[in-house]
């Protein structure tokens, strides 16, 4: 018995990706195993930890709670897609480096995706709004403080650049 496969077409980090996938293949497994975009991490596979967060048409979603077929025809951005074209850190990623907003790096991609979505919607968030925006992402290393600092720093730089 072989599983039936379905044809999907997803724009990932600006590039059209087409594949034949099983219905039960989760989006996180598709990204990691089929596309080898291993920056998106599986932490709990039940939608709580947020390590697998990606942007689906600009909205942060848990890629462990979605099937790859559900992303058919949609547009995705993963952590790799937030870097500069040469692969070096983008502005928000650079702020995470400046504030040392990570240790082991496992939750980091999900945190940055959550922070990116926040800043797109609210370029000048206060501490409370930042904590709420990352409140769905678990980090065991940092106690969140340097993450909050990094997001404040990135927000400040965005404001400076747009001024």
């Amino acid at each position, binding site marked *: *018995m*072989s599983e039936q496969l379905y044809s999907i077409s997803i724009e990932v980090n600006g590039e059209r990706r087409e594949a034949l996938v099983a219905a*039960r293949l989760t989006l996180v497994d598709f990204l*990691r*195993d089929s596309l080898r*975009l*291993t*920056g*998106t*991490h*599986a*932490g*709990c*596979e*039940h939608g*709580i*930890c947020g*390590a697998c967060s990606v942007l689906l048409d600009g909205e942060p979603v848990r890629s462990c709670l979605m099937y790859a077929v559900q992303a058919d025809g949609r547009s995705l951005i*993963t*952590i*790799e897609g*937030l*870097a500069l074209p040469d*692969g*070096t*850190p983008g502005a928000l*990623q*650079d702020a*995470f*480096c*400046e*504030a*040392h907003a*990570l*240790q*082991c*790096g*496992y*939750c*980091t*991609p999900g945190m*940055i995706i959550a922070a990116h979505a926040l800043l797109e919607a609210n370029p000048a968030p206060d*501490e409370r709004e*930042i*904590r*709420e925006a*990352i*409140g*769905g*992402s*678990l*980090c*065991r*290393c*940092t*106690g*969140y*403080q*340097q993450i*909050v600092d990094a997001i404040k720093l990135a927000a400040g730089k965005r404001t400076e650049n747009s001024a």
Partner: protein
Amino acid sequence: MNTLVTQAFRYIGKKRRTKEDPRFVTGHGRFVADIALPGMKHVALVTSPHAAARIKAIRVERALASPGVQYVLTGAELCAETEPLQVGVDAPKVLRYPLAHGVVRYSGEWVAAVVADSRALAEDAAEKVEVDYEPTEYVLDPEKAIEPGAALVHPLHGSNILYRRKFVWGPVDDDFARAEHRLALRVRWGRSASVPIETFGVAAQWDPGQQLLDVWASIQMPKYPDQTARSLRLPGNAVRVHFDVDVGGSYGVKRGIKHTVLVGFLAKRLGMPVRFIEDRLENMRGGDMHGPDRIFDMQVAFDSDGTIRALKMRALDDVGAYAGRSPLQLGKPVGAIVGPYQIHSVEYEPISVLTNKTAQEAVRGFGQSPTNYALESIIDRVARHLGMDRVALRKKNFIRKDQFPYLIPSGTTYDSGDYHTVLDKALAAADYPALVARRDAARKTGRLAGIGIASCLEPSGANSSFEPLFNPKNDTTTWMDSCLVRVDLSGSITGVMNTSSAGQGHETLVATVLGEVLERDPDTIRVVHADSLTALPSNSPVGSRMAIMLGGAAAGAARKIKAALLAIAAHNLKKAVSELEYREGSVGVKGDAKRSLSWAELVAIAHRKFHLLPPGLEPGLQAKFVWEVPTGGGLPTADGRIQMYPCFSFEAHLVLVEIDPATGQPKLLRYVCGHDCGVMINPDIVHGMTYGGIAHGIGAALYEKFAFSDNGQLESQSFMDYLIPTALEVPEISIVDHCTPSPLTSFGQKGSGEAGYLGAPAAIACAINDALDPLGASIAELPMTPLAIWMQMQTARAGGKRSPP
């Protein structure tokens, strides 16, 4: 921060970006789940639904016929062909293998492993493995487990007691008899763990041509390659562990030896690469990573002026169904058993108990945080008994700055400290009188508010002294670490470390230290992780040791490089070394700026110009440095006195908590931590670990518990039941630095990997009890969940009695 200390350094103690962060923020970390070997197969597990049962039959035919299945392994085959996993104490009949054989001893224990082309196919097939069980008697309560007639977890061992000894250090009974007051208290530390966001994983590949097993794992474990090889009946040099795998958090628990033996065996047996990544359920039930679960019975003897004379502590620890190093977590606290206090004599009775629960593993602090919680709880109780201010009581009993080095009754000498100043700094930063006023104002309006204070030690620079202390057959006293430094032909510097990292920033540590000693920009220095066949000896990043041990090894190797450069220059400039000056990599004649050799010239001589090399000097430019933990090497005395870790960091926590009267939900309104870990190599890294440790401590104090039902089922099996604090539960934290250098280390540094966690649970528990005090209520058990707090409030308001202490 003592500015004199940091100004002496070029790179150490400065705000500098880490070397590791860029690869992680762009999604280019390389974790074990990112290792994809061609033709790799995947494992899913069949696990026990019973707390205790005999396995009567296992039928695997349907599973083997399932699509994509390569193999089904059961305990019968695995146990016959591997050696049992090591036990940390002298209990040779407490046998442990990766898969159960004949009996299961806890719910979630691994019974069979299914290997298939994908994890999904392996899971499909695992559901088709049929196991017939005959449930047997089990024991879950550790106090009942040590009573005669209790069901035995390991009948061959003859008892559920894995380790028990009563240590008496000093005239405890005399001190108790002479003291003006005595007080007893029972407190309980609940079963929680560090629960990294990355579960444990391991991939292995057997090369039949080379007869070599390659292992990639999410590992933080001393002697892991050696233990893997022994269990697989392979010579040590037939296992190659790749330490360049990024570990997604550990804080003690990433010790997956049973996972590795299982996967290594399968890879060799099948001749195919095999990978197993725990899912969260496997991680929580059968990953064997639960932390200490302790009942402390304490007595303290003290005088009316607050002088604490003597302490008795009985610690009963439920380690679950199997033991690796877990019983030793009762041993480490021996080295800081009196905390920061002058206590003249101590009786300590650690009891390690087997029950039918998931096995215990090392957790951040290796047993010290529960002990600190117990100690601080009874200190608070003394203050309440005497009507004395809690700060004043602590200060009265603190070891004074001028008393170091200070020998405690259990045989350990503390290196240095200034506890009064650190606590004062924390009090000042918190504006303590204002904090008290804020609490009292809240109380006046009918709200429940409390202040918690904890002053705790963080032993650092781990050695293994608890091994010979708890197991006379183990005379291990060596606990070295190492660094290799290479300067290549181009003049670039590479540091080689010999273990994996789990977020502690070791690459930054090594680069900073090498840069400091060689006066070269750390940004230009590369740091790599050896594999276990090319590595120098290391005991892995446990027990807050790497700033001291890896930092010290890097410094030692760099100093050898510097000495070689000076020797080359002396030979070529025809001067004595004492007449030369090393400046940023070049060497010149003192007082004669024109006569010097540059870094490039010196490197060229070392690598290419044997005719200019001083006689006897090794060609090339490389150095290794291997060293033993400072103060290490001793065996315990007959009465169990031993020098445990060498260095002692100190943390003073202050927290203001308010409790929602309707729900019992506590809110942390102010959090200040005064911290002294000597010289900080990279302050951002130290602060980050301290914030993280406090957050972890908030979890242990208020939310996290591996709870079991009466029939031995784990009830907290996901992040919906096992509650890790989010950014909304963790408040903004103020860290106040202080620096008392250690006299024992290269730059005065102490360890800090367990910082924050060692005092936060104690401080928060004390705050909750301070908040409940006006109701006449208190809680003596962690976690102090909103429900537990609410129940106390209801009981108190109904005029019920205070819960037993």
